[in-house]
């Protein structure tokens, strides 16, 4: 039987705020345990939650970015369960009336083997505001667990999709797109190691061609795209094998073990699932007006899809180039800055996706940490365009600039990379080469095209690589046909 995998994602994005969602405690990552755990985080008797305006703004921005319905009135609810890192005994979340309703994200699934790349629309069911829980630390004291409540109350936006994805590749393409988007609109720093962007993946399988969804298992807390691929592929295989062996899938929460590459059931869900949500009497309904949306919308940056279209239309970039350059706002801004500083757009795109990105990758940096400014890079590209240096020499200049050896022109001068573009000088060199290589000239005249390239090589060598190759070609051709 042929099987089809059905995948939906729930993503917890930590919102970029200074303080917690319901109190004025700081949320700096890596602080000493419990130094950011105020009385609200500790759930001391008598404390009341007060909603953070910035967290609400982030949610509205996200809603606008995915063209979603933003609820004019949404309600906070208590999700009740007992765990030591949740001292209140409930998490404040949203249930029936979330702040962001239905929206959509368009993903680009890359080509794989003989399957071509394609686009697909992934529907977003909802996104709601909630607070994070604290953290359990094991091993500090024997037979005890330690609780750090610094993270308790950190604002999260949980983004839930429809079960629209049909492969690990689609799920990862969606997760990457969402990751790019939340950073683009500046609501989340996207740091997956620190847990600012965590994905839960619901996986089920069904016979291909059938409608009814299979029983799903939820893979919790995936914090890298690589693990996500591995976990989904393992889980899919496991479910298919279980069903083909006559077994049944039990609804469960599973964890992925990166060391073994396997998923393993965590706990039975039947009881844990009974969260007995009800509206939190400590919080009033959240009202968002058209004016709020308009004001926040006016401050939004141009969205990646719009910018991609603009890069294609305004700068003549290919769809591929435009989409590579709009994977992050910083990258796109850097590109526009190079072009604004006078560089050719296509050349700028090639350099950014070539030398610049290779260098950044090798040093595990992002464009913000690039040691060459957009203006400097534009200057370098201008020096190629005006014939001062060759492409090869430009690569050397680039390396030197990266190493902080100075500006473009001083490096060109210091390394003697300036191209010889003086026609007289090049003619003199070529005359010498022709005189010294009579045999090659004869071969060329006898119809051997290869001899021409050999002569160009000789001329370049004689100029110590500094002659402008285009000029050498042109002058040589003229002299040989004379």
């Amino acid at each position, binding site marked *: 039987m042929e099987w089809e995998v059905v995948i939906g994602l729930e993503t917890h994005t930590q919102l970029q*705020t*200074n*303080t917690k969602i319901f*109190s*004025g*405690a*700081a949320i700096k990552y890596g602080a*000493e*345990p*419990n*130094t*950011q*755990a*105020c*009385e609200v985080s*500790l759930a*001391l008797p008598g404390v009341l939650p*007060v*909603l*953070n*305006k*910035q*967290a*609400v703004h982030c949610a509205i921005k996200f809603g606008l970015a995915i063209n979603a319905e933003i609820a004019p*009135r949404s*309600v906070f609810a208590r999700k*009740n369960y*007992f*765990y*030591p890192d949740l001292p209140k005994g409930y998490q404040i979340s949203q249930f029936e*009336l979330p702040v962001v309703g239905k929206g959509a994200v368009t993903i680009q699934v890359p080509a794989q083997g003989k399957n071509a790349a394609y686009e697909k629309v992934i529907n977003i069911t909802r996104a709601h505001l909630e607070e994070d829980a604290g953290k*359990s*630390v*094991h091993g*500090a*004291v024997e*037979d*005890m*667990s*330690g*609780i*750090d*409540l610094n993270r308790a109350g950190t604002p999260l936006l949980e983004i839930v999709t429809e079960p629209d994805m049909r492969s690990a590749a689609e799920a990862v393409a969606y997760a990457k797109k969402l990751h790019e988007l939340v950073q683009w609109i500046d609501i989340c720093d996207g740091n997956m190691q620190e847990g600012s962007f965590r994905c839960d993946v619901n996986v089920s399988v069904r016979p291909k061609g059938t409608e009814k969804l299979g029983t799903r298992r939820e893979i919790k807390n995936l914090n890298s795209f690589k693990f996500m691929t591995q976990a989904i592929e393992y889980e899919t295989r496991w479910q298919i094998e279980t069903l083909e062996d006559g077994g049944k899938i039990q609804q469960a929460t599973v964890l992925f073990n990166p060391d073994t590459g396997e998923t393993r059931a*965590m*706990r039975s869900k039947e*009881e844990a699932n*009974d969260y*007995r949500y009800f*509206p939190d*009497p400590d*919080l*009033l*309904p*959240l*009202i968002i007006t058209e004016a709020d949306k308009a004001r926040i919308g006016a401050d939004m940056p141009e969205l990646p899809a719009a910018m991609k279209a603009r890069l294609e239309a305004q700068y003549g970039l290919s769809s591929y180039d435009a989409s590579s350059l709009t994977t992050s706002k910083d990258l796109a801004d850097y590109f526009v800055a190079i072009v604004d500083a006078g560089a050719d757009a296509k050349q700028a795109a090639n350099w950014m996706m070539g030398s610049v990105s290779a260098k950044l990758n090798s040093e595990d940096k992002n464009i913000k940490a690039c040691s060459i400014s957009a203006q400097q890079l534009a200057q370098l590209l201008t020096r190629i365009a005006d014939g001062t240096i060759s492409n090869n020499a430009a690569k050397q200049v680039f390396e030197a600039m990266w190493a902080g050896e100075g500006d473009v022109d001083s490096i060109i001068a210091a390394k003697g990379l300036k191209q010889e573009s003086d026609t007289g000088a090049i003619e003199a060199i070529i005359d010498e080469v022709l005189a010294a290589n009579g045999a090659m000239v004869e071969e060329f005249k006898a119809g051997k095209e290869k001899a021409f390239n050999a002569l160009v090589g000789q001329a370049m060598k004689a100029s110590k690589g500094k002659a402008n190759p285009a000029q050498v070609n042109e002058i040589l051709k003229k002299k040989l046909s004379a």
Partner: protein
Amino acid sequence: MALSIEDIKKVAHLARIAISDADTSATLTKLTGILGLIEQMQAVDTTGIVPMSHSQNLSQRLRNDVVTKTNLRDEFQKNAPKLGNGSTEPAVADGLYLVPKVIE
């Protein structure tokens, strides 16, 4: 809606309330009474009425995103639950609150 003894035990467990067998049937009677009252209220026609999520018809005030809390860990941890076994020391170590070992 009819409740069973099992429902009472389940709800008590979810709320982590210890309830003796003797109290279970008394609780069943009381809770059934409350549900009866709710059933009576549900008979009222509420077509076209927006459900309230709060008893006051107000909207949520928002707080500016400014740090107002300082680190009072030492004060708070003096009040942490005691270690137990007669110890009067708060159950804290290395800045962490200690709880019985959590096994996942």
